[in-house]
């Protein structure tokens, strides 16, 4: 099987500093006040004083079986064979939002140019497979990148699990 790159989100190390979100924007030339390819989410549970806060940084999951690509009527979304990165051809995108409804995670966002989402920074010059900027900038190494094999090794011994979402098979581990 060809390589499949993905992310590992270690929630035990994420401190909600937002560095990944801002790095993503500056490197991908995204104007403030528009979209965010990567977002830091928060889950707060319990009641004071027995409260826990968990922070999770998420972007496109680069699924093994991307539902977005499957439904795209314009053939604008494709999964790259050599590295498994899911990319959008904005020239082809007709802005129908089908992909948004198909994506189990609500990842696709839209600008005047078409659907927009994470491409592991290959659009801004990062060699496919090299570290995307959100990962490189993470001050706590909470966010990591690699092939699914490399990531599986990294999370062995942790409670990390590959994200499950039925048929889509997201390329993301979370612990």
């Amino acid at each position, binding site marked *: 099987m060809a390589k499949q790159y993905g992310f590992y989100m270690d929630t035990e190390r994420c401190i909600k500093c937002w560095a990944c979100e*801002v790095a993503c924007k500056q490197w991908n030339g995204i104007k403030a006040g528009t979209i965010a390819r990567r977002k830091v989410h928060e889950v707060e549970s319990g009641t*004071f004083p027995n409260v826990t806060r*968990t922070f999770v940084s998420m972007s496109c999951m680069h699924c093994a079986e991307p539902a977005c690509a499957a439904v795209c009527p314009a053939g604008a979304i494709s999964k790259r064979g050599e590295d498994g990165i899911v990319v959008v051809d904005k020239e082809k995108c007709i802005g129908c939002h089908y992909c948004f409804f198909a994506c189990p995670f609500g990842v696709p966002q839209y600008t005047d140019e078409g659907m927009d989402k994470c491409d592991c920074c290959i659009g*801004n010059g990062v060699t496919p497979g090299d570290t995307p900027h959100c990962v490189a900038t993470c001050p706590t*190494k909470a966010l990591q990148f690699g092939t699914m094999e490399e990531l599986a090794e990294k999370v062995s011994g942790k409670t990390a699990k590959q994200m499950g979402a039925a048929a889509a098979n997201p390329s993301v581990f979370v612990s």
Partner: protein
Amino acid sequence: MAKEGKLTRRAFLQGTAALGATAALSGCAGQETLEPSSAGAPAVEAGEAEVRHAWCQMCGPARTHCSTLCYIKDGRWTNVEGNPEAGNNWGRGSRSLCAKGNAAMAVLYAPGRLLYPMKRVGEKGEGKFERCTWDEAMDAIAAKLLEQKEQYGAKSYGVLSPQFYAVLGTMGRRFLNVHGSPNYMHSAICNSQRMFSRLVTIGGPAHAQATDTAPGQLDKTKLLVVWGYNSENSAINQGNPYARLNAIEKGLKVIDIRPMQDGLAAKADIWVPVRPGTDGALAMAILNVIIEEDLYDHDFVENWCNGFDQLAEHMKQYTPEWASPITGIPVEQIYEVARLMGTVKPMGINIGNGIGDQQNDGHWTVACACLIEAITGNLGIAGGGGAGMVAPPSLIKTKSIDVLTDKLPKTEEDEKNGFMAGVSDLVGPETPRWFQTMETQESGPTTAYFKGIMSILTEDPYPLRCIFGQSSNPLSATRQPKKVEEALKKLDFYVVMDTQWNSSCDFADYVLPACTNYESSYQFGTKNSADGTFIAINQKIAEPMGESRSDWEYYLDLAVRMGYGEDFWNGDMDACLREQLDGSGIDLEELRAANKGIFVERTDGAKPTEPKYQDYEKMFASLPGGKVQCYNEWIGNKPNCDDTGTISPLPVYNGPAESIAGTPDIAEEYPLVISDVHAYRLCNHSYYVDVPYLRELQPYPWVKINPATAKQYGIADGDWVKIESPHGWVKMVARYLESIAPDVLMSRRGWWQPCEELDLPGYDHLDGGSEINVLYDAELANFDPFNSAMSKQTLVKISKLEEGN
């Protein structure tokens, strides 16, 4: 260690010739939509971009914490990343940065940049200004300073020191000394406060080397107590959060004491949501339990403590039962924390701004934390307080700027009292006059920022006549902006130099446009590690916007105009830099040409070594009797900083001017406690609210509120609320947070900057605005009697505010 000449040097030089070809950027440049295309290192390789070095400015002007690589494409700075050569954060190879660092470009291109010198033509506060030339402004400032020196004495001039700021700490201090004024107006909201308290309690050869309670070898620590310290906000990329998370993975236990469960507190084993401003009571109760339950190290106490029996007797009254209603922490939890601190070893304490300089009991709170660390036998042991590994020496030895301390005249009063030069003339001493020496304050005498400003109103002991404010907005940097505004209105002469029009500029006589450190090449720094030593200078990323100038140049220019040129390299900043580099083996041209800085590898195989453990004789040498001051004979029973009374030799707890347990009558009308975070990860104190990437994450001034409390007042998440204290009122947007006590609110100060790109306003600093400092008490008599720390907690009532926006 290898001889300097034998070292391998790796310099990173690329494309500097293109520097001069960069188009000068002028006018107020807006942030354009950036088209995605090849960026960063790949673009440099492809010849499509240039890379230049800068020390990140986002933690404040003239900081040299994080070395960054800045990518310039078509004459515009488009991207930034951590410099992997420098050894940022976890060491060499790290390219990490915080959110602010990733947004740094906006600081250069901000639409709000000041471009020309301005002089006031209307009344103070009216906002009527006219453009003038640098010559006109500088001549006027020089003439006024000379005239005031003649008429009122040089001491009538003071400078605002908002946070550590290299220009101010070196050139600004040198100017003060040459001019003859001791009035360096230090914030009193600073690590310096904690260092004073540590120094007089657990020693250290001098102020900046005061014995530390924080673990020097975290990998050997079993219990870390994080107390009012939020490195996920204040120092994200400086190694602390990273190292702590590693240690937690390896089994470190953490107790995090602070009112709001922010990022790293969420990783702690025990979170202690102490009521803001009451940490002193908690510290005293913990000390009580450790002594009463005999959890202290008898051998240490017998040999190395002064007055332990007096302390033990004194602490009997401060039980957990006493502290619980003050702090809001259940009695059982106080016992639990005290017993852990008393039994788990090695234990270290991260003492943060939150407890040391953000409350009027700052000194005793820190002193009690130091005593806990000391009497449990945790000082100077591997994994305990201090005792860090000793790094091999720096391979690049630069000199610091001599601040010419000897130039500050010693007055007759100084001679008579045996004071350090200038101390008698301080307008509002930050620490007691008798305490200020070159060992306790190595940079010279200090006046407290707020006290200095208040002298204008009180004229006690005399009024300051000229204040120079550099990258500081006194209407947000200290307490009670209503009083500060009144003082600025009365002040004879106020000069501001800033990159943007801060809200205090309306009261200035002259406003000078500062360039950022991305537009000058004067700031250099080094980083030393086991691998080697890194040195780099800020390279010019753009020509200064408009007529803006470097803060460094300002001082040289002013000094020359005032006839102090000989002491200021006759105005030549490069000469000043060459003097600092002299003997380092690095010359200025080489440094300025290094686009990624210069890294000198360590080739002699030297490794960090273990320190000498339990070296108490040396550690406590500066303390009376060479012992830990359980009963403080250094500062006890001696005059306080205002000469209005004496300092207690044993711990005392006063509480904030308004508090639930301390002032129940006020609490009846104002039932909630409010405070604000000191440092925050999306701003630098009150600055950078204009930065689009940061502002979009938090568009409005916020107040965190427990949902149960909010619902009680009919406040929904996202509603504007009116927050009233006995001192003033502000409006903010309520944000639900379960991890905050129902009787506590937490906020963030600042918010005076508008964000043009996102069409979001700035907010006023008076009643009805959003500057939280308007809510706090600012009676000088309530400040910490030893270090001038001011309370940052008060009582408030809240209500939903219709049309708050």
